[in-house]
C-alpha cells in the first residue's frame, strides 16, 4: 500500500528548517515555536504510525507505510521509504528526541535562527536513514547528517569544540567512504539498490564478481565507526562532551543508533552467511567494547565525558546482540538501541541541566546537590539506575533480553563465555553510575550552590516524559518487542538455526 505518512514525517522538520531560516533572528520566540510545531507534528504522526502498525504474524518482514517513486531511472534508484518492526521504534524514538531537543534548547540565545535550522535538518536526516529502503537514498541521508552536527558542535559547543567537530566529521567521512565503496560494490554486483529485494534475494551472484566478505566489511566499517566499536570510538567522547546539550542528546539518543541499525539492515540481512562466519570476531569486539568502555568510564571526572564513555560500553551490548545472531538476541539489540536512546538521552539532558544551572561539570567539585535541586537529582538518579540495568526500567529489559538471547544462541561457538564476560560490564556500570550520582548529589551541602535553580516547568514536562517512556518499556517491554520481532524474524530466518 502506498502512503505518504513517512514522507511527511521525514520532511516536515526540513520544511521547518527552511521556514526558520527565513525568519529574522529578532523573532527568536517565533523561531522556537515554529521549531516546536514542526517537530511535534512528526512525533504525533510517528505515534499514529506506531498505533496503526500491523502487528499480526502475517506482517512479519513486510514493509508498511511504503511509498515508492521513480527517482533516477538510469541507475535503478528510487525514492523508496517504508518501515518494518526494526525501523519503526527507531523512527518513533528519533521523532520523540527531535521534539524534546527543541524544548531542551529553549534557552539557547546564540544565533537562534541557524541553531534551530540545523537542529531540524539533523532530525530529517536521521529519520531519512531509518526510513530509506533504497541504498542511494539511505546514503544521502546518512551523509547529510554530518553537516548540521558539525555546525552544532563547532558553534554552540564548549571546550575544544572545533577540534571535536572536525574530528567527528573526519571520522564519519572515513567510515562512510568505506560504506560508499560497499554500497557501490553491492550495486555493481547486483544492479539493484533496493534494500528489500537485496535482503530477500540475498547476494547469490556476488561470489562470481567479488567475494561477499570484503563488501560486508566495507559496509561494516561505516557502521562500526558510528555505533561505535572499539577501537574506532574515540570521536564519540570528544563529540558528546563538547556538543551542546541538544547535540549530545541527539548524538547519543538517535545518531549512533544508525550504526546498529545499518549492521542489522545491511550487513546481517544482505550477508547472513558472512555474518555467521565472522560472528566470533565481532562478538569478541563487542565484549571488548563493553569491558574496555566500562573500565575507561570509571576513570572519568567530567560528567558528560563519563556518560559518553558509558555509551561505548552500552553500545557494545548492541553489537553483542546483533552478532550472537539469535532471534531473541537481535530483538534485544534493537530494544537496547531504543532503551539506550531514552536513557542516555535523558542522562545528557540532565547533565546539561546540571552544567547549565550549577556552572560546574567536574565531578570532583560537585556534591551535595540533592538538597538544592531535588527534582533534577531524582530524575538523574532514575536515568542512572536505568542505565545500570535496574529492573522495571528499559535498560534491564533490553540488556536481559540480549544476555538471554546471546547466551542461548546456537550460531556462535563459546558464546556463553563472551556473554558472561559482557555481563560483567553491568557490574562495572553500577560502579560508575553510583559514583557519579554520589559525587554529584550526595555528601555535605555546599554553600556556593545554595541559589542553584531546580528544573523549571518546561524541563519537568520533558524529563517526566522520558521517565514515563523508560518505565513503560521497562515494565511492559512487549509494547516494543511485539513490533521489533516482526522485523527481526525474517532476518533470523535468513541466518538459519
Amino acid at each position, binding site marked *: 500500500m502506498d502512503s505518504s505518512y513517512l514522507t511527511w514525517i521525514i520532511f516536515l522538520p526540513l520544511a521547518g528548517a527552511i521556514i526558520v531560516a527565513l525568519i529574522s533572528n529578532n523573532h527568536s520566540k517565533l523561531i522556537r515555536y515554529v521549531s516546536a510545531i514542526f517537530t511535534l507534528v512528526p512525533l504525533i504522526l510517528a505515534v499514529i504510525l506506531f498505533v496503526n502498525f500491523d502487528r499480526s504474524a502475517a506482517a512479519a518482514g513486510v514493509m508498511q507505510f511504503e511509498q515508492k517513486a521513480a527517482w533516477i531511472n538510469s541507475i535503478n534508484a528510487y525514492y523508496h521509504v517504508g518501515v518494518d518492526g526494526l525501523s519503526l521504534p527507531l523512527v518513533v524514538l528519533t521523532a520523540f528526541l527531535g521534539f524534546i531537543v527543541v524544548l531542551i534548547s529553549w534557552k539557547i540565545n546564540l544565533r537562534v535562527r541557524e541553531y534551530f535550522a540545523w537542529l531540524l535538518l539533523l532530525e530529517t536526516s536521521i529519520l531519512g536513514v531509518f526510513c530509506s529502503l533504497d541504498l542511494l537514498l539511505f546514503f544521502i541521508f546518512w551523509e547529510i547528517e554530518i553537516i548540521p552536527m558539525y555546525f552544532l558542535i563547532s558553534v554552540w559547543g564548549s571546550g575544544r569544540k572545533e577540534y571535536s567537530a572536525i*574530528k567527528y566529521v*573526519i*571520522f564519519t567521512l572515513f567510515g562512510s567512504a568505506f560504506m560508499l565503496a560497499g554500497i557501490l560494490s553491492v550495486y555493481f554486483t547486483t544492479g539493484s539498490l533496493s534494500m528489500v529485494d537485496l535482503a530477500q534475494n540475498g547476494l547469490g551472484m556476488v561470489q562470481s564478481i567479488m567475494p561477499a566478505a570484503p563488501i560486508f566489511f566495507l559496509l561494516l566499517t561505516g557502521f562500526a565507526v558510528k555505533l561505535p566499536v*572499539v*577501537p574506532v*570510538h*574515540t*570521536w564519540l567522547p570528544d563529540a558528546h562532551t563538547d556538543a551542546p546539550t541538544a547535540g549530545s542528546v541527539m548524538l547519543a539518543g538517535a545518531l549512533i543508533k544508525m550504526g546498529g541499525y545499518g549492521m542489522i539492515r545491511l550487513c546481517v540481512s544482505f550477508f547472513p552467511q558472512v555474518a555467521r562466519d565472522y560472528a566470533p570476531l565481532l562478538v569478541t569486539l563487542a565484549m571488548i567494547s563493553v569491558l*574496555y568502555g566500562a*573500565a*575507561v568510564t*570509571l*576513570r572519568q571526572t567530567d560528567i558528560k565525558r563519563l556518560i559518553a564513555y558509558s555509551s561505548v560500553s552500552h553500545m557494545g551490548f548492541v553489537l553483542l546482540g546483533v552478532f550472537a545472531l539469535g*532471534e*531473541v538476541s537481535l*530483538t534485544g539489540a534493537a530494544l537496547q538501541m531504543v532503551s539506550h536512546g531514552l536513557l542516555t538521552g535523558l542522562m545528557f539532558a540532565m547533565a546539561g541541566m546540571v552544567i547549565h544551572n550549577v556552572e560546574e561539570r567536574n565531578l570532583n567539585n560537585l556534591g*551535595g546537590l*540533592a*538538597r538544592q535541586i531535588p527534582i533534577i537529582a531524582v530524575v538523574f538518579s532514575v536515568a542512572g*539506575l536505568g542505565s545500570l540495568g*535496574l*529492573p*522495571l526500567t528499559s535498560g*534491564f*529489559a533490553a540488556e*536481559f*533480553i540480549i*544476555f*538471554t*538471547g546471546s*547466551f*542461548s544462541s546456537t550460531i556462535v561457538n563459546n558464546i*556463553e563465555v563472551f*556473554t*558472561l564476560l559482557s*555481563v*560483567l560490564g*553491568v*557490574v562495572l556500570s*553500577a*560502579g560508575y553510575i*553510583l*559514583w557519579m550520582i*554520589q559525587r554529584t*548529589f*550526595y*555528601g*555535605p*551541602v555546599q554553600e556556593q550552590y545554595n541559589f542553584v535553580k531546580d528544573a523549571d516547568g518546561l524541563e519537568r514536562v520533558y524529563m517526566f516524559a522520558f521517565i514515563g517512556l523508560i518505565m513503560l518499556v521497562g515494565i*511492559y*517491554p*512487549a509494547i516494543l*518487542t511485539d513490533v521489533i*520481532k516482526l522485523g527481526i*524474524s525474517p532476518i533470523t530466518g535468513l541466518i538459519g538455526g
Partner: protein
Amino acid sequence: MPTQLFWFIFLLPVISFAIITLFVKPFVRRESPLAGYITITAIAGSAVISIWTLIEVLGAPHHEIAVPSISWVAIGNVFEINLGIIMDSLTAVMVVVVSVVSLMVQIYSLGYMAHDEAGYTRYYAWMSLFTASMLGLIIASNLLLMFVFWEMVGLCSYLLIGFWFHKPSAANAAKKAFIVTRFGDFGFLAAVLLLYAKTGTFDTAEISSLAAAGALTGTAITWAAIGIFSGAMGKSAQFPLHVWLPDAMEGPTPVSALIHSATMVSAGVFLVARTFPIFVHSLEAVTVVAAIGGFTAIFAASMGLVANDIKRVLAYSTISQLGYMMLALGAAGIVLSHEGHTAIDAAKAAVAVGIFHLFTHAFFKSLLFLGAGSVNHATGTFDMRLMGGMRKVMPWTYITFLIGSLSLAGIWPLAGFWSKDEVLITALEGNTLLFILAMITVFMTAFYMFRVIYMTFHGEYRGGDPEAHGHLHESPGVMVWPMVFLSVLAVGAGWWNVSGHFGAFMGHGETKGVIEGLFGIFTHSPWPIISLLLGIGGIVLAYLMYGSKRISAERVGDMFKPLYTMFLRKYWMDELYEDIIVRKTLIGVLFAGLQQVDTYAVDGTVNGVANGTSAGGGIIRRLQTGQLQLYGLFIGIGILAIAICLYTFG
C-alpha cells in the same frame, strides 16, 4: 479464598508507594505522618492477607495452591515470560514473616523518625517499595521475576542505607552495599542464563522438575547452583561478600531492623531454599553452601566479640546467624545427596530446618535492632562505651532486649533454642567439622550478646553522645509496643515446631505431643543440653567480664592482642577490597592503564594519522609552487617517461 487475593499481598504496598510518591510527596508537608499511616494501613492489609494465606495453605492438599499466571513478554515461540505466583508452604511462611515484621517496624518508625529533619515522606515511600519488592520476590514463580524483585530490594536497601545522604559515610555505605551485592548478582544472573539455555524456561517449578527428571546434569547444574548461591552470598552477606552489611548500619535503625536483619538479608537463604531442588543434584554445590555457611557463622561471630558499636555487634550477629541458615541448608543437602534422595519433595522438605531458623531469627533479631534504636533514641549514640545503666531508665526496652538476647543465645524454651538446636543436629549429620564450628559459635553468640546487655543496660551511665541534649527517657509507646509484640514472638515462635508441626508443614519429619517435644528434646541425644550449657557458659563469661568485672576485659584483650586486633580490624578485609583491589589495582593500575591506552595509543593513532596526513599535505603543497616553468618541467618528464615505457614495452 479467591486466588486473585494473593496478588494483593504484593500490590497493597505498591499502591501505598504510588500514593505516597504521586500525591503525598508533592502536596503534603514532609513532617506530616500521613505517609506513615498510609504505609501502615497497606502493610497491615498485606499482613492480614498473608496470615489468611498461611491458614489456607496449611489446609490445602500438599500445602500448595495453584495460581493462574499472566503472559508478560513473548519473542518468537521460545522466549516467553509469565507473571505468576507460587503459593506453597515456603511462600506462606515467608510472606507472614515479612509482612508482620514490616508492620511492626513501620509502626515503630512513626516514633523513631518523628524528629528527623528528612521527614516521613521519603522514608515511608522507600519502606513501602521495599516491602512490596520483598513480598514480590517471595511470591514470584519464575527466576526472572525473582531477579527483578531481587534487584529492587537491593535498590531499596541502597536508598535506605543512604537515607541520610548528606553524610559521606552513609553515601559510601549505600554504594558499597549495592556494588558488593551486585557482584554476587552477577553469578545469579549467569545462573539464570545458564538454566534458561539448558531448559528453555525461567519457571522454578518447571526447572525443578526438569532437574529431577535428569534433564540437567553434570557441571551445568553445579555451576547453576553455585551461581545462584553467589547471588545469595551477596544478599545474605556470606563470606567473602559480607563486608557491606556492617557498613549498612549507617541507615536509620528501623531500616536495619527490617532490611538488614529480618527480611532482605534472609532473601539469600530464601533463594537457595526456593531453588533447592537444583542444589540437591550437586554434592559439590551443597558442600560449598554448607562450608561457606559454617565458616561465615564463626567468622562473623568473632568480629562481633569485640565491636563497640551496638548495631555493628548485631550486624555481625546477623551475618553469623545467616551463616547458620546456610549451614542448615547445605548440611541437609549433603545428607540428601549422600542418600541419593533427589526428588523434588525431599528437596523441598530439606529446607525446613534452615527456614525455621530464618523464621524465628526474623523476630528476635528485628526486636534486638529495634531495641538498639530505642537506646539510641535516648542516648544519641550507638557506642556502647558511652552507655550503661539503661536498665533503670528504659525498663521496657531492657526486658524486651533481654528476651531477644536470650532467644538468640539459644536458651530453652525460647524460640531461638528450638531452631538453633535443629540447625546443630542437621550440621552434625552433614559434616562433623562444621558441627564443631557451629557449637563454638553458640558459645560466642551468647557471650557477645550478653556483653552488649552488660555494657548497655547494666553498670553506671557513661554519658551518651556528648553533643546530644535532653534527658534519658523510655521511648514512646508507639516504639515500645512493636518491641513487646516481637518479644512475644521471640519467645513463642519456636513452639510451632516443638511438636514438629512446622517441619510437617514443610514436608519434613513427623509430629509429636507438645509435652514430649518440650522436654523430650533433652532425652534423645546429649547435644541439646551441651549446646544449652555452652550458651549459658557464654552468658556467665560475659557476666564475669562486663557485669561483675571479676575478669578484666582489658587484660583479656591484651593477652590475645593479635587476635583482638584482627577481629577489631575485621581481618583487614575492607582494606583489602577497597584499597588494594579496587582503588589501587583496578582503578589505579588496570583502568588507568586502559585510559592511557585510550588517550595515547588509540586516540593517539587517530591524531597521529591526522597529523601525518596534514604534514604530508604540507610537503605536497610545496610542489604546488604555481610556477609554470616547474609544471612544464614535470610535464616534460612525464611525457618522456611515457615515451620510454611505450618504447620499451610496446
